[in-house]
């Protein structure tokens, strides 16, 4: 691949991100246009922003890589990533918005009226956020290595530096527009090349030049995780399904975006739009996985299957066209790393500066940003060998076994108590966190134990729910005093007052 194209594409994406973030589309008008400004972020824009932040390196590169190596079983990944929003829509979206919480710790404190539950949630948010950041940085390293031959650590360090500078300097001011832009960029970067790739495949007579063996062979992988998946594929698949279906609702960078919706109904509409946008996007990685098995089958034998998306344009199209398409894909991949990494870093740094580091202030937020990025960067440099999509699946597992019980029971069960929530968070989330940390560190190498640790959601989610329910039932005397009022606020539409009468909506508020 021609380096110059790729480098310029990556540079353009980075610059566009920083520029739009810094100066771009902030609404800046004279008063005559003020009605425009008084409109809150609409569901469409907000949904694009959520999708932009959500579609990470795992979606952009990882899914296609896994499909290439393991075959159609891996289609559960895109299904799970999307279906998570369905669960979010049905159980959580509107009440979460009505709670007025900006972060998960806020929700925990508001619902359970307890500072100590808040601290536990903060700790888990930081843990899950770090787990999620590691594969983003690894993906960036891999991408830059393949595109330019730079050492593996360089790409991760570059993304980390850009994100820390942008976030710490306050450069991500109009974050909604940046993220919405990133979504459309990512979609374009996969859609356009996919179109040409399929054309090229058709031009080749429907058969690839090195037509050897069966596609979807799934053989010849030397990775530990892949082995265990091959050992117990059914269990692993269930682990994946539980983690992704239930984990989406607790991802810290997704939760904060719901705050931007003006009310519960808008939050729900936003989620529906997210389902559409993400569903559209996830039609594309399988195409790449399938074409990859035709044009680059040797990748499945290496640890770099994640690179399939990047290499395909060069292999299948070639020439100037291949270079241009390759540059487009590279730019999209970088958009994926930047948007997810900046969203996560903002969320983790916010929690660190509010609940973990001692004092407050702008300087501390910058310090927190640095800390939020340094730890996962260290992890990314030290750990390798876990496919990007699997690593993200682990962050989902932690979220599913801690935040899912907290949110679902917190919203739908009035007998939840602070000790119960604490127990569920620590047992469910804590055990999942330990399990995936052991897996990533490679402590257990094979057998059932390894499978259980690598796909913890199947057992850790029930543990989290059970612990929360049983301990709550045992401590019914410490149900928070204002539970009824809180529940009313969570479930009544904003236009109804607590007294049950309809307030006349301010006529001045424009639709």
């Amino acid at each position: 691949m021609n380096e110059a194209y790729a480098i310029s594409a990556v540079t353009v994406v980075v610059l566009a991100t920083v520029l739009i973030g810094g100066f771009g589309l902030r609404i800046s008008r004279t008063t005559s246009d003020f009605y425009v400004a008084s409109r809150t972020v609409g569901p469409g824009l907000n949904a694009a922003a959520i999708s932009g932040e959500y579609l990470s390196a795992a979606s952009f590169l990882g899914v296609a890589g896994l499909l290439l190596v393991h075959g159609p079983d891996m289609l559960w990944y895109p299904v799970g990533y999307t279906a998570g929003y369905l669960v979010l829509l049905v159980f959580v979206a509107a009440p979460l918005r009505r709670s007025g919480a900006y972060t998960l710790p806020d929700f925990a404190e508001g619902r359970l009226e307890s500072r100590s539950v808040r601290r536990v949630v903060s700790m888990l948010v930081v843990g899950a956020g770090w787990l999620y950041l590691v594969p983003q940085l690894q993906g960036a390293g891999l991408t830059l290595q393949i595109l330019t031959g730079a050492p593996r650590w360089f790409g991760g360090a570059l993304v980390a530096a850009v994100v820390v500078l942008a976030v710490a300097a306050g450069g991500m001011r109009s974050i909604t527009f940046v993220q919405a832009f990133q979504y459309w960029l990512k979609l374009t970067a996969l859609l356009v090349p996919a179109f040409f790739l399929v054309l090229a495949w058709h031009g080749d007579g429907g058969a690839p030049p090195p037509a050897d063996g069966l596609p979807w062979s799934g053989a010849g992988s030397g990775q530990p995780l892949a082995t265990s998946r091959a050992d117990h594929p059914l269990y692993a698949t269930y682990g994946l399904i539980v983690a992704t279906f239930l984990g989406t609702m607790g991802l810290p960078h997704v939760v904060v975006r719901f705050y931007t919706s003006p009310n519960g109904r808008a939050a729900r509409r936003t989620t529906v739009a997210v389902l559409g946008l993400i569903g559209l996007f996830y039609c594309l990685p399988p195409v790449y996985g399938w074409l990859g098995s035709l044009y680059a089958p040797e990748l499945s034998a290496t640890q770099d299957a994640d690179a399939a998306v990047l290499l395909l344009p060069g292999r299948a199209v070639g020439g100037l066209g291949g270079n241009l398409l390759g540059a487009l894909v590279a730019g999209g991949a970088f958009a994926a790393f930047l948007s997810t990494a900046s969203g996560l870093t903002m969320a983790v740094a916010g929690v660190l500066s509010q609940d973990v580091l001692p004092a407050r202030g702008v300087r501390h937020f910058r310090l927190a940003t640095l800390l939020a990025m340094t730890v996962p960067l260290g992890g990314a440099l030290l750990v390798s060998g876990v496919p990007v999509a699997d690593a993200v699946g682990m962050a989902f597992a932690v979220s599913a076994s801690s935040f899912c019980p907290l949110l679902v029971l917190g919203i739908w069960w009035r007998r939840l108590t602070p000790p119960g929530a604490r127990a569920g968070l620590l047992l469910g989330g804590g055990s999942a966190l330990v399990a995936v940390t052991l897996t990533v560190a490679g402590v257990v190498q094979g057998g059932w134990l390894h499978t259980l640790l690598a796909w913890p959601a199947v057992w850790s989610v029930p543990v989290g729910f059970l612990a929360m329910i049983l301990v709550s039932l045992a401590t019914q005397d410490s149900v928070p005093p204002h539970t009824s009022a809180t529940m009313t606020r969570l479930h009544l539409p904003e236009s109804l007052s607590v007294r049950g009468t309809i307030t006349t909506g301010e006529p001045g508020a424009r639709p």
Partner: protein
Amino acid sequence: MTATAVLLALCPLLLAGGFVLGRRTAHPGGRSDVGTPVERATFDTLHTASLAAPPLRAGLTEESARRSARRLRTLLGTDALCLTNRTAVLAWDGAGDPHGKQVMGHLEGLLDTGRSAAFGCGCDAVDCPLRWAVAAPIVTDGRVLGALVAYAPRESAVLARAADEVARWISVQLELAELDRSRTRLIEAEIKALRAQISPHFIFNSLAAIASFVRTDPERARELLLEFADFTRYSFRRHGDFTTLADELHSIDQYLALVRARFGDRLSVTLQIAPEVLPVALPFLCLQPLVENAVKHGLEGAVTRSRITIGARDAGAEAEVVIEDDGVGMDPGELRAILRGEGGTSTGIGLSNVDERLRQVFGDDYGLVIETGTGAGMKITVRIPKYRAGVHSSGVEVG
């Protein structure tokens, strides 16, 4: 691989370390020289007293009496202690509950005169620890609110004196509670005043400006009248202490439209609003006085044209609102006096009231930050946390 494992295992430790560090820094100091026995006794007493004080700040109720009675009994070192109001026993701590039923009979005289009394309980049991009691009145503002009754096995002058002192200490705490309440009432009254007050001048001037359009531009006059109606409806709104930034900015927009109708080109306004922060909840009418202040400063004196900038931006877990004018500004010393509540002008009441309310709702970190100088304009920065327990805009939908 083992090195990796160790490093990853370190991550949670690091986090835990952060928490511990945070708590240490929050409470500096620790174990040090413990002092002589007398000093230690003093410390213990002061400590117990400080533990008993917070519940009493809620006033004399059954709940607060129950929670403080235990501490007070430790303070007095008696076997039983009881707190009453004028009509009933509020809390009984210690042995021998049955005596509680007879207490009120003994207290009749005390509650009328406000003088301490000692009485035998008429308990015949030889081993009863509660044969004698001393009652001391709890008095605030010259009114007897209730009594503190301490029990002992035999008569004791020391206990009588101690009970008197503790009762006086409780009275002081309750007076402080009363002070707290009256401060809150004062702020509420000021908000009501602010609502009711939308200065008569403003109403008069707006109507005059609208009147001037009635013949020349009836359509504009009609629009302005509608703005005026909306603006007053919002400002006189009775329900809810909190609103959203979107609603507040909308009302500010209506206010500015009316002001511009009067001053025309002399006033130009720029708004820069990040849409992400529009749902933030904040105290009702806490930006409008600041804008009014900016308009007043901008158009005061010989200034021919004035420019006002209103910006709201997203800053992580907070929203930051900046209101800036290029008017006459203010002497910083004078401003400090106003914020301390020593100024007399109506503008002053607006600024100090907003400052006070922000601090009360969000904490002392979130007061107004004002940069100004004589002739140098004024820049007011308000930071609003996106979430604070108990702060919810009351149900008015925008969207």
